[in-house]
């Protein structure tokens, strides 16, 4: 497709499917707007009327209470009506196709679809299919993208470190299966981060990962040297033992973030994790609860970032 599916003719955001290819100005606009929403969530009434009368459908073809909840809170703080659907168990098993499901919901006057799906590209498929007055937000598709997570990570980094153009950022762990890692890497490179590092064993790094604009390190101490930001990725249970890794213990030994490994990073380095954490697998509790961890602020910022994305999508004549 020549046209970027995410932007309308005027170059404004139409859907949020991936950070790859998103113009820098749009990313900055989302982060700036999110900053305004952070203030809103600290007020007595934590709501603004922007999306009053609009319907946001949370379509989770893959279960995730946590992500769904943050989208739900964000939509409600914008005064939208929120409808949650866990579809993994309902119509899909009755043989209804994904696009049939979407057509049905569109007929119920949905304005926005927040979609989580196990297959890479599912959000693209839906975005290509819906009428122009529907907006699609990708809440995670397979291994491909989780753009709001990438944006909230970028927001958090900007909050603590301001200028992306002087930073070294390390992403550690299971990058092969991680949509979070892909989205963050695209956000960082678009925002001008000069040094993005991918740290992990070969079995957890996708082929040609360097083409995303990262430097690969297999040795964690070497990879963390003098970095400003460390992003630890979640290791799924089913991948801890098998052909990719011998055990969770050995993974922790080589790639778990401990105080001792953290010490090779800059003294003011921040530690991030998209959650939910596996303590003692990716990250030591001392570090997770330590002064350099910004894991809980990430969650708070995540709501503001999702409000920003929804408010930028939901307005304007379509």
């Amino acid at each position, binding site marked *: 497709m020549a046209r970027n599916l995410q932007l309308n003719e005027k170059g404004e955001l139409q859907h949020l499917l991936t950070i790859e290819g998103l113009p820098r100005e749009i990313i900055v606009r989302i982060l*700036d707007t999110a900053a*305004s929403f952070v203030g809103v969530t600290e007020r007595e009434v934590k*709501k603004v009327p922007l999306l009053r009368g609009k319907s946001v459908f949370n379509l989770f073809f893959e279960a995730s209470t946590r992500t769904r909840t943050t989208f739900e809170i964000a939509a409600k703080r914008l005064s939208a009506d929120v409808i949650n659907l866990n579809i993994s168990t309902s119509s899909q098993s009755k043989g209804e196709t994904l696009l049939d499901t979407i057509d049905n919901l569109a007929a119920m006057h949905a304005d926005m679809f927040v979609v989580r799906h196990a297959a890479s590209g599912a959000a693209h498929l839906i975005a290509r299919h819906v009428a122009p007055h529907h907006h699609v937000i990708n809440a995670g598709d397979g291994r491909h993208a989780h753009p709001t997570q990438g944006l909230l990570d970028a927001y958090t980094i900007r909050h603590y470190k301001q200028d992306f153009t002087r930073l070294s950022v390390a992403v550690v762990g299971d990058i092969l299966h991680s949509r979070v890692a892909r989205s963050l890497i695209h956000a960082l490179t678009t925002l001008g981060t000069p040094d993005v590092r991918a740290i992990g064993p070969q079995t957890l790094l996708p082929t040609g990962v360097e083409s995303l604009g990262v430097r690969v390190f297999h040795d964690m101490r070497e990879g963390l040297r003098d970095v400003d930001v460390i992003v630890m990725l979640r290791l799924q249970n089913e991948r801890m033992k098998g052909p990719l890794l011998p055990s969770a213990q050995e993974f922790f030994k080589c790639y778990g973030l401990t105080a001792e490994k953290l010490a090779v990073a800059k003294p003011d380095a921040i530690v991030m994790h998209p959650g939910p954490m596996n303590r003692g697998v990716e990250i030591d509790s001392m570090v997770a609860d330590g002064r350099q961890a910004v894991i809980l602020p990430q969650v708070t910022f995540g709501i503001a970032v999702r409000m920003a994305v929804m408010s*930028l999508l939901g307005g*304007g*004549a379509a």
Partner: protein
Amino acid sequence: MSVALPDAERVYAELVRQLEPLVTPETGMVGIQTGGAWVAERLHRDLGLVVPLGTLNISFYRDDYASSGLHANVRPSQIPFDVNGRRLLLVDDVLFTGRTVRGAMNELFDYGRPESIGLVVLVDRGGRQLPICAQIVGATLAVPAGAKLDLRRDGAGRLSLHLEPGG
């Protein structure tokens, strides 16, 4: 078409003169971004108010969101004091349709319940579309409906009014 524009600095001085007898140490002042915030900043200093100045960005309360989308350059609202039970002065540069003021009042109430809100505007250009009027007005001007009346601030902080004929 020609409208004689007054000197904004003189109009401002007129505002100060009217406000001086009305404010108390407890008065809270809130400026609407961006022009209203400039005026409020000056008033806050010149009137010697002690409660810190608040600013409002009403982008999230605009009634044209559904047709025009979210406005760019959203700088966050900041109300660094408790609005509950307080007498507030809401400051804007130009009062026109009244829709901005409506949005601002809606937003203020999401911070709490003030005892009263007084509206202070540098210029009232007429053309109201809502039942809103200002208590303190620096100057009243008849500006054709399509024209755009703007307040600007130069590097030295001096205010000036500008009129662009509408299309």
